[in-house]
């Protein structure tokens, strides 16, 4: 389930593991991994997809620095919630690369991190339905009073 601030929304993006799937399925909104993008960029860009890119928390933005205009969504997949790299990467996407489309968190993330995610430039998170209430509770507990700009 995708949560964008306090709203649950549909997820049009379907994850694609290899290029065959991509051609066969003709999905309009697809989510591809960074590895697949690096290997098959030419082929992928031939088709008119709504492209989403999944970057794992241990990968860098280096390889896609000049490709950002292709992506409607960048999804950071946390290997573990303790790996805080995507907080810096999301901020970099917004501040240095001026990326305006959706940034999403997925993988092992905790509701306790929701406000930090939003403040670093994330728009949405992929969560388990059973935890929805807890995620919303953190949003509700947040009073918008912070020490940082």
């Amino acid at each position, binding site marked *: 389930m995708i949560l964008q601030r306090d709203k649950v929304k549909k997820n049009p993006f379907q994850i694609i593991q290899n290029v065959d799937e991509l051609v066969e399925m003709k999905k309009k909104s697809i989510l591809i991994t960074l590895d697949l993008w690096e290997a098959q960029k030419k082929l992928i860009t031939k088709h008119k997809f709504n492209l989403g890119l999944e970057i794992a928390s*241990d990968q*860098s933005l280096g390889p896609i620095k000049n490709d950002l205009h292709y992506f409607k969504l960048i999804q950071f997949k946390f290997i573990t*919630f*303790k*790996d*805080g*790299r995507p*907080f*810096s*990467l999301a*901020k*970099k996407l917004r*501040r*240095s690369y001026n990326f305006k489309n959706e940034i999403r968190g997925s993988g092992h993330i*905790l509701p*306790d*991190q929701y*406000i*930090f*995610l939003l*403040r*670093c430039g994330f728009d949405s998170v992929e969560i388990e339905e059973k*935890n929805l209430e*807890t995620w919303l*509770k*953190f949003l509700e*507990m947040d*009073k918008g*009073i*912070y*020490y*940082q*700009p």
Partner: protein
Amino acid sequence: MYKYTEQDKKIVKNRTKEFKFQVERRINGDLTEEEFKPLRLMNGLYLQLHAYMLRVAIPYGELSDIQLNKLAEIADKYDKGYGHFTTRQNIQFNWPKLLDVPDILSELAEVEMHAIQTSGNCIRNVSCDHLAGINSEEVEDPRPWCEIIRKWSTFHPEFSFLPRKFKIAVTGSEKDRAAIKVHDIGLKIVKKLGTIGFEVFVGGGQGRSPYVAKKINDFLEKKDLLNYLEAILSVYNELGRRDNIYKARIKILVNELGQEKIKELVDEKFEELSDKSLELNQNEINNIFNFFKLPIEKKTNSKVPIHSDKEYNHWLQQNVINHKIRGHSIVVISLKPPGKPPGDATSSQMRELSKISKDFSYGEIRVTHEQNLILPHILNSNLYELWSRLKKLGLSTPNFGLITDTICCPGLDYCALATARSIPISQKISNHFKEYSVQEKIGDLKIKISGCINACGHHHVGNIGILGLDKNGEESYQITLGGSATEKASIGQIVGPSFSTENLIPAIERILKTYEENKKKNEDFLSAFNRLGIDKFKEDLYK
């Protein structure tokens, strides 16, 4: 002293609520222990060998009488009647129950205290020179800068899940009493061509790979402080190693990349990410400085009372320092009386000290990183009465800066990571050398004791460092010599094979004999060691 604003109050109160919710989720199983651990650590809650331990923040070591009284109350109500002051100017309670912790945090919030970021892989309590604002050789008071950093680093959205813990220390003097060169970031306030700014050091630290920090900026303008800190942290968050906990501190990154490369990356990041809204304007800076005005209004001719009592005179000589305002003194309260665990204070001592600080020191108390306390503003004529009251509490030990003024970690008596006990070693030393005349003759000497390689007892930077090891089930102690945490920071060198508990004191005696036999007039231990070299000590020790 700093007083909470409405913003501070709301943030701390909200955190208490949030933590209560986290404890509930842990208890009902919504959070696994693995998930709960970093969350509780960020609230200062450790699980130690026998029980939970709560580490309460004392930002840059400054406490009010009301806060100290509250700490005494907490020690009685939720713990076993004592607290332990740490090397990062905090206090630890060793026996709280998990379910009591949210209540403890609520009580702390009542007196503007908390346990936020006293642990975990985030930016920790900022530490500071314990003589900040009251010594005459200072360029500028570092405390307001610590407060500015405290605010910026608290619940920083980007830097709360770093590769590893991150410690910042600030000094405003040439003489470094805050050990800035063994911190992840050390800031030294300097004046160049009439303008005040910062020298920035990065990548110092102890643990199993000790390093002295490298200077990466000769002069950082005040207004850029937070943007520059963000640049360092951002480089570290992206590039710091996460594959091996022992290689995750920024010191390893700095050492792997080299001083030049890290400087280049930080400068690049600083250029790229600098945010106008993080720039400090003079008004904001002044607002914070206003909190730290000295409570003493003017200099006086107040004289130190003369008494024939030998103990009083030893104490005057050893534990009393000149205040920058004439007629006043700074008093160091040693938490290292003979035979007691260094840094411990009982609730009754804390309660009485709270009163004493109100009566004599404008209700201000400080904690030093060497685990002592300070009464910062004492009128000279009050010194005898103050000494008499401290003596009744067992808090007048005249050993500040001497051999029995050891730094010591909790060791195997409390800590789950320890390989040996460290408190009993410190107790042995303080009993063995307890005579003031013996200590005075040895002179300035820093012994620092750690119960494992993580070096919480700072053994790497002890003039004599002692590291407790486990050798086939037996406690064994390795000695390092020549370490220092001052402006001339250095990492101690291992002198040779380790010693059993029984042989440790004789080994220290032998080291002191080498010093005694070879020192020049007025040469302290560290200077003599640096001149003589380790081989001389090794030869004498193992012959």
